[in-house]
């Protein structure tokens, strides 16, 4: 079966776009083929800095013939219907149509449309230019004389040539006949820009990839990565060093060369005074080089790995020397930053943060730091931290944002602060908190264990969440520009590590603090004479407390994050809902242990049956309460129940006992105990539904039986709202 070879050769494609572009090319071409009924055996796409290539193996030489039958109107139908049928089926006259007889409806016209399969080559010539013209580059451009015309071809950088061949292995393939943007597809490509710049005639994928390899182009990015990685490791090993591996950098560097040549350079060991992370950031970001460390050690070595694109006639001496010069200049800058930064104490940097706007409605970084410090101090006793240390750490936590080093390398935030704090003799917990309060930055990142870090991290995240909630900048859909979901999930992870916090009690006063900042910012930004309006805070009764409405909204956001988190851990989200539905639940740790006990309970026979019984009771109550237009929420008359049927009496007694035991267990946070107490209700509930008619003719008896059912619902409500549980 024939193969397609497509190469789109251009000027240098940004490294970060290459892999995605190759995959897009594969998907667009194969999808377009499949859509037209052309199946294939395999497809693979490739990218280098100067080309995208696609190989599709096992395509048919032509598409399958299509036979379609189209039923028309009845014989003798009005002329308009006949004409419509002829036009739709592409027939010239009724002579070309057949007549068929339907036993019920009589005689009909039938058109049989036969289309021969199209040549694959023609189909490719039709679809490839369209795909090239509308290719989804993140940013595309026009170029050259053609760009004077509207509708000129756009590509990521100027497109130079196109190879497109199609044919079976055994014969010379044909060129796919198309042209786009003034470039006609052909069989000629070019090798490495410097090492083999001449033209290369190619036929099909096999000889193409080999010819490129001879012309010093490794087509496959993964192979270039392998070459770089192995050569780098070998070079390092030969000098007794280890490569500090870096997948992101490796991917980028593989997109900067067609023929990787790995070289090693060195720098003055005196630069090793600079923190290792800063050296790495400098060499990585600016020079796209790898750093090395001394074997079996965390210490950096004064050397680096560079990847050039040239087999130089001097063995790479000039290239290495040139790179060393630049690395030297960059490290001199880094050393200058490091020395300058060290000369200023972190607290002396704080006034600068007063001048930096955090958010136009939420005031400056300085104001935010003051809020975080206040909150960290309050949270400290709850997490077992020294309030003074927590306050100190929070004050200094953002000071490194205005250091030279973090200005140059934002990814070093926190880490540099920690270094500078250690140098100025801060308490070790303060130093740790300055770095760790950003954690966890992702699902695989750990949660710190130092209580001071925990206090500052929570304060930072809660201030962010409360702040953006106060100004109604909540995440919507896929939009979460301030990473609020991550902040909330971070809080969830700290709490589940063993923290008891009543979130709303922490939210409420902080909303007030933030509201003050918002009003102050409004006044500061208002034109003269304008009035600033205070943010009104609506409060509602919630489980016996007055709580800020926004606190409840934020709590619901936490509930969602917790649900996502627990679902990932295998917990049922309906159980989380069932627990959150109870008023006054804002202690996440307690909620989780309640959900755990509930889940276990519902896995037992007793649990399942009790759930069924409670649901049945709730349904009956709902119907009867609606019918009667009243609620049955008073306590049942135990004397009346005692004089009733045996099952009625038994349930009343069991309920009184179980409810008392369960609420006692809940009070001491023994949820398993509460579930055990409830499980004793299963038999009496089953018996009640079997033996007792709720809607008794005697209204007194009926009312008391409904009240019994309500007592059952109320008893289970001590652990969860069973009506929210599925099944």
């Amino acid at each position, binding site marked *: 079966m024939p193969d397609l070879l497509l190469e789109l050769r251009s000027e240098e494609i940004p490294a970060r776009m290459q892999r995605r572009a190759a995959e897009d090319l594969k998907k667009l071409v194969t999808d377009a083929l499949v859509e037209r009924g052309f199946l294939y055996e395999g497809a693979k796409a490739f990218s280098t800095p100067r080309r995208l290539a696609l190989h599709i193996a096992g395509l048919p030489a032509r598409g399958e013939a299509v036979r379609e039958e189209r039923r028309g109107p009845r014989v003798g139908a009005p002329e308009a219907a006949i004409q419509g049928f002829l036009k739709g089926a592409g027939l010239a006259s009724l002579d070309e149509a057949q007549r068929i007889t339907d036993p019920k409806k009589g005689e009909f016209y039938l058109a049989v449309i036969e289309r021969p399969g199209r040549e694959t080559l023609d189909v490719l010539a039709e679809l490839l230019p369209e795909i090239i013209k509308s290719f989804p580059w993140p940013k595309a*451009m*026009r170029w050259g004389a053609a*760009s004077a015309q509207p509708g000129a071809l756009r590509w990521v950088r100027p497109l130079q040539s196109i190879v497109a061949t199609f044919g079976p292995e055994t014969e010379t393939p044909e060129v796919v006949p198309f042209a786009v943007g003034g470039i006609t597809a052909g069989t000629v490509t070019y090798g490495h820009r410097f090492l083999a710049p001449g033209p290369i005639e190619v036929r099909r994928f096999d000889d193409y990839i080999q010819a490129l390899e001879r012309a010093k182009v490794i087509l496959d990015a993964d192979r270039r990565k392998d070459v770089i990685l192995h050569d780098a490791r070998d070079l390092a090993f030969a000098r007794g060093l280890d490569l500090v591996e870096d997948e992101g950098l490796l991917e980028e560097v593989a997109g*900067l060369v067609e023929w990787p040549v790995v070289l090693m350079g060195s720098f003055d060991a005196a630069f090793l005074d600079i923190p290792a992370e800063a050296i790495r950031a400098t060499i990585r970001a600016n020079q796209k080089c790898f750093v090395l460390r001394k074997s079996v050690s965390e210490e950096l070595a004064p050397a680096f790995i560079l990847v050039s694109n040239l087999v130089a006639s001097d063995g790479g001496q000039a290239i290495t020397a040139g790179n060393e010069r630049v690395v030297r200049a960059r490290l001199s800058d880094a050393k200058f930053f490091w020395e300058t930064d060290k000369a200023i104490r972190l607290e002396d940097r704080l006034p600068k943060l007063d001048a*930096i706007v955090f958010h136009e409605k939420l005031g400056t970084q300085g104001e935010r730091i003051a809020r975080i410090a206040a909150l960290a101090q309050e949270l400290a006793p709850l997490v077992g931290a020294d309030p003074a240390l927590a306050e100190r750490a929070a004050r200094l936590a953002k000071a490194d944002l205005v250091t030279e080093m973090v200005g140059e390398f934002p990814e070093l935030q926190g880490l540099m602060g920690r270094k500078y704090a250690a140098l100025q003799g801060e308490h070790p917990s303060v130093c740790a908190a300055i770095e760790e309060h950003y954690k966890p930055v992702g699902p695989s990142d750990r949660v710190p264990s130092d209580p001071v870090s925990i206090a500052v991290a929570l304060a930072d995240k809660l201030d962010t969440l409360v702040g953006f909630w106060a100004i109604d900048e909540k995440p919507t859909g896929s939009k979460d520009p301030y990473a609020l979901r991550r902040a909330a999930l971070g809080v969830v992870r700290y709490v589940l590590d063993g923290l008891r916090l009543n979130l709303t009690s922490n939210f409420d006063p902080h909303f007030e603090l933030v509201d003050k900042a918002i009003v102050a910012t409004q006044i500061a930004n208002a034109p003269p004479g304008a009035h600033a309006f205070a943010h009104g805070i609506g409060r509602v009764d919630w489980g016996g407390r007055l709580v800020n409405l926004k606190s409840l909204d934020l709590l619901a956001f936490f509930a969602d994050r917790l649900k996502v988190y627990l679902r990932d851990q295998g917990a049922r989200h309906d159980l989380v809902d069932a627990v959150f539905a109870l008023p006054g639940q804002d202690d996440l740790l307690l909620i989780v242990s309640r959900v755990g006990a509930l889940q276990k309970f519902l896995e037992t026979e007793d649990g399942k049956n009790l759930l069924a019984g409670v649901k049945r009771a709730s349904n009956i109550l709902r119907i009867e309460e609606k019918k009667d237009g009243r609620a049955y929420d008073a306590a049942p008359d135990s004397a009346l129940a005692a004089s009733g049927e045996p099952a009625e009496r038994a349930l009343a007694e069991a309920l009184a006992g179980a409810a008392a035991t369960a609420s006692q267990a809940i009070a001491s946070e023994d949820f398993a105990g509460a579930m055990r107490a409830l499980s004793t209700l299963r038999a009496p509930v089953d018996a009640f539904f079997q033996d007792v008619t709720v809607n008794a003719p005697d209204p007194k008896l009926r009312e008391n039986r409904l009240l019994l059912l309500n007592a059952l619902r109320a008893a289970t409500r001590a652990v969860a709202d069973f009506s929210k549980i599925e099944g």
Partner: protein
Amino acid sequence: MSQKKSFQGLILTLQEFWAAQGCVILQPYDMEVGAGTFHPATTLRALGPKPWKAAYVQPSRRPKDGRYGENPNRLQHYYQFQVILKPNPPNLQELYLASLDAIGVDLKLHDIRFVEDDWESPTLGAWGLGWECWCDGMEVSQFTYFQQVAGFECAPVAGELTYGLERLAMYVQGVENVYDLDFNGAEGADRITYGDVFLQAEQEYSRHNFEAADTAMLFRQFTDAEAACRSYLDAGAPAAETERHRMAQPAYDQCIKASHVFNLLDARGVISVTERQSYILRVRELAKACGAAWLRTAAGGA
């Protein structure tokens, strides 16, 4: 040191090279600008349908980059060599590489790379796609295909090359400190270094830019330049659809002036973060208006 490798030799070689490619060799624009792109031979000539090829040296002023002559790499006044070709020829990358070869960069020894760099000038309302050109890991030039200038689509697209002359010369001469650059390639007492020519100026202008520049005067100058730009545009405006604009270039001079004055005020630290954006926008509005006027002139294709 051979004449060719000296700082001025480098300039002479580049001029000769690009003259041979059909460029008009212009002289620096006689105003203070932040980059060679501000020269009307680039900004204005990049607009409109007419072909244009030019090359020139442009002294560039970045008041904030002054370091009192104490930093080996940073200057508040430096030179760019600027090439603009409209439309860009299909072999512009090859021409660029040939120009490196001409100034003595052996392409068999040195690793030249085109690394993504999307260029944008908020003050000029301009953007383009291209690369930083690296020589053995050092950025020596910028290579841009202009897509938009002064808010107008470039049709056709111009290719712009900007060589950082000091950096390139430091590389060619193997010098670590810009002030040590051999300026004239002469021997003995006749030898002149970059420091001989510019060190004192760097010290004086750093003092001026950071400490002395009269900010009240500069604020006035900004407002004056902005007003003058508008009034020249009005005065030269075509009376009818069929007529041309008659004063696009003098107006654009005022736009350049406003831009430089803004840079000075910025260096003096008297513009807050929020104000900064609004100043940039004001300059961009001038640039756009000048671009629109230029498109109504003969050279702009009207």
